[in-house]
């Protein structure tokens, strides 16, 4: 893994008991996910009361945090945090892919970019769901993980742009037609609603709550996963590294207990907040 080559060498010690652990995410990537989900939860918690401002909980929540002015302030604050995170991420891609010419960023089995195998995997996976074929084997990023990534990437551009267009409407009006100022609210709220519904139901289940990972996939918090899990979930990546004799490079240390517990608290809190917001959204949407 290109990005893992920069991983700390001290982490390559093999855990004495409980089998080996392999690095999947760097510290920076885990921090990026933390920044992402914290600001996303903040944006959802302050955005949903605005979207469903006539629902019973929206006014109570707004009053609880100090009225609408406070809600809008927090929403803008989290938006700026997320914008900075997004900019740092784009900078990293440009740095590694275009300037350092690192391989595997834009193409290949380790890239986030979709390829023909992903298309085949979608159909193969569904055939397996229905018992019509074998379970496909996945590489570093499976197609639903790539979808998650690009959905967030596209979502940040769309929601971010439409959000800033509302924030600085008179400025944006210099180069947007008048009706676009009407459209940005529709785009912002619909795309955000999609993001909320998708993350709090589909991402949660696909990544954390499905039987293979239940109740939570800790790899995004600890950065490492067990050899057994690595082999089962990302067979192709495991085999490729194994054949090239590069598996050793990816060995990390077993996560210390405090990190596991801390991750559980943070992760379950995020999932709990997310599911609460999901229920509130659904009650407001269908009432």
């Amino acid at each position, binding site marked *: 893994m290109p990005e893992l080559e920069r991983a700390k060498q001290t982490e390559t010690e093999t855990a004495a008991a409980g089998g080996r*652990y392999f690095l999947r995410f760097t510290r920076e990537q885990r921090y990026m996910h933390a920044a992402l989900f914290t600001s996303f939860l903040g944006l959802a918690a302050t955005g949903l*009361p*605005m*979207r469903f*401002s*006539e629902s019973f909980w929206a*006014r109570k929540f*707004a*009053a609880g945090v*100090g*009225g*609408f002015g*406070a*809600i*809008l302030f927090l929403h803008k604050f989290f938006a700026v945090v997320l914008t900075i995170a997004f900019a740092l991420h784009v900078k990293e891609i440009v740095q590694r892919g275009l300037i350092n010419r690192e391989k595997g960023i834009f193409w290949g089995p380790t890239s986030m970019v979709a390829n023909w195998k992903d298309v085949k995997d979608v159909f193969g*996976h*569904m055939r*397996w*769901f*229905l*018992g019509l074929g074998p*379970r496909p084997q996945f590489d570093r990023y499976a197609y*639903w993980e790539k979808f998650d990534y690009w959905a967030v990437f596209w979502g940040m551009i769309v929601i971010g742009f439409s959000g800033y267009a509302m924030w600085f*409407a*008179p400025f944006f*009006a210099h180069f*947007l*037609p*008048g*009706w*676009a*100022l*009407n*459209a940005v*609210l*529709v*785009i912002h709220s*619909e*795309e955000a*609603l*999609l993001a909320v519904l*998708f993350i709090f*139901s*589909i991402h949660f289940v*696909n990544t954390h709550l*499905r*039987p*293979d*990972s*239940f109740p939570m996939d*800790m790899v995004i918090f*600890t950065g*490492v*996963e*067990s050899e*057994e*899990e690595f082999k*089962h979930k990302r067979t192709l990546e495991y085999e490729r590294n194994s054949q090239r004799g590069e598996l050793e490079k990816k060995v990390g240390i*077993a*996560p210390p207990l405090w990190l596991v517990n801390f991750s559980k608290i943070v992760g379950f809190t995020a999932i709990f907040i997310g599911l609460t917001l999901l229920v509130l959204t659904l009650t407001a949407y269908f009432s």
Partner: protein
Amino acid sequence: MTDSAGHSIAVDGKKFGDSIHGSLQCNNCHADIKGYPHPDKIAPVDCKTCHADQADQLKSSVHADGKEHPCTSCHGNAHEIFAKTDARSQVYPLNVPKTCGQCHGKDGMAGKHGLASVYPNYIDSIHGFALSKEGLLVAANCQSCHGSHKILSHTDPQSPTYKANIPQTCGNCHAKIDADYEQGIHGKAVAAGKMAAPVCSDCHTAHAILQPTESEFRMQSTPICGNCHKDKFSTYRDTFHSQLGSLGGYVETARCWDCHQAHDVRPASDPSSPINKANLIVTCGRCHAGANKSFVQYQPHANARDRKLNPGLYFVRLFMNLLLASVLTFFMLHTILWLIRSRYQQIKTKNGNGGKHA
């Protein structure tokens, strides 16, 4: 001291002496009492003997029934009546609401006739506060709008509270606002006999009148206009102004009259209307510093469901809805099938792959 029926006939000589009738002799009113001992049956005192004009006015009013509404029900104890300019009088401006409230309150007589309890509404209104908290003698009390002796039903065209007369009644104090209102589309409609148009009380209510710049009124105001302008209210509710404005504590977002004016409401075609195209930059600019020509093309009542009126918005919304529906439908099915299949696989192989990892 009681009479043969047990009623007290005591009179506080000091108070009577102070009262407006203090210079009168007892038998000026109790004319049938000539000597002592008094006759067994004494005729009720007839105030009309002196106050004929008031009695005439009362006769045509809703309080005409003398048995239910004797003069004393408003003016108080017959031997302790003071001039209405005297703070001790029950009909002194600051005491009027309480006096009327004896019947027109929550458990008052008026309830028995199916009349609303208006006293609590009034006393919590801006007029009620001005009167009870500030002691403003000019603050509207009951009789400022309803009159005193000749109180008529609001269904009587003679009544100051008859719908067509309300602008003038309120205009007795609020002259400038009445003048503005008469210029506006609502005032002109009412003057032309189109009584569906609102008068003061349709928006401000009759008794529970709030200070319109305060958040409580701003929060409840848009549905009032929406009672008649249903389509405009519905499209307003789709916008940012409404969504933000519905949340408690934030009342700055534009309500109907922030753009349309409250009293001098004019159609957009009128050059002096704040929503006339030529005036939009100024009108929007009151809140949105830097509003320009393109900015004011924003439609505060755009309808994303109307393809002819707002084609761009219509297709944007259609696209977003299709995107939302297709992504969620696909992944919902995908996730449910996946869940079932992996659970089945787990049970079949008795091998939960999850759980052991960190």
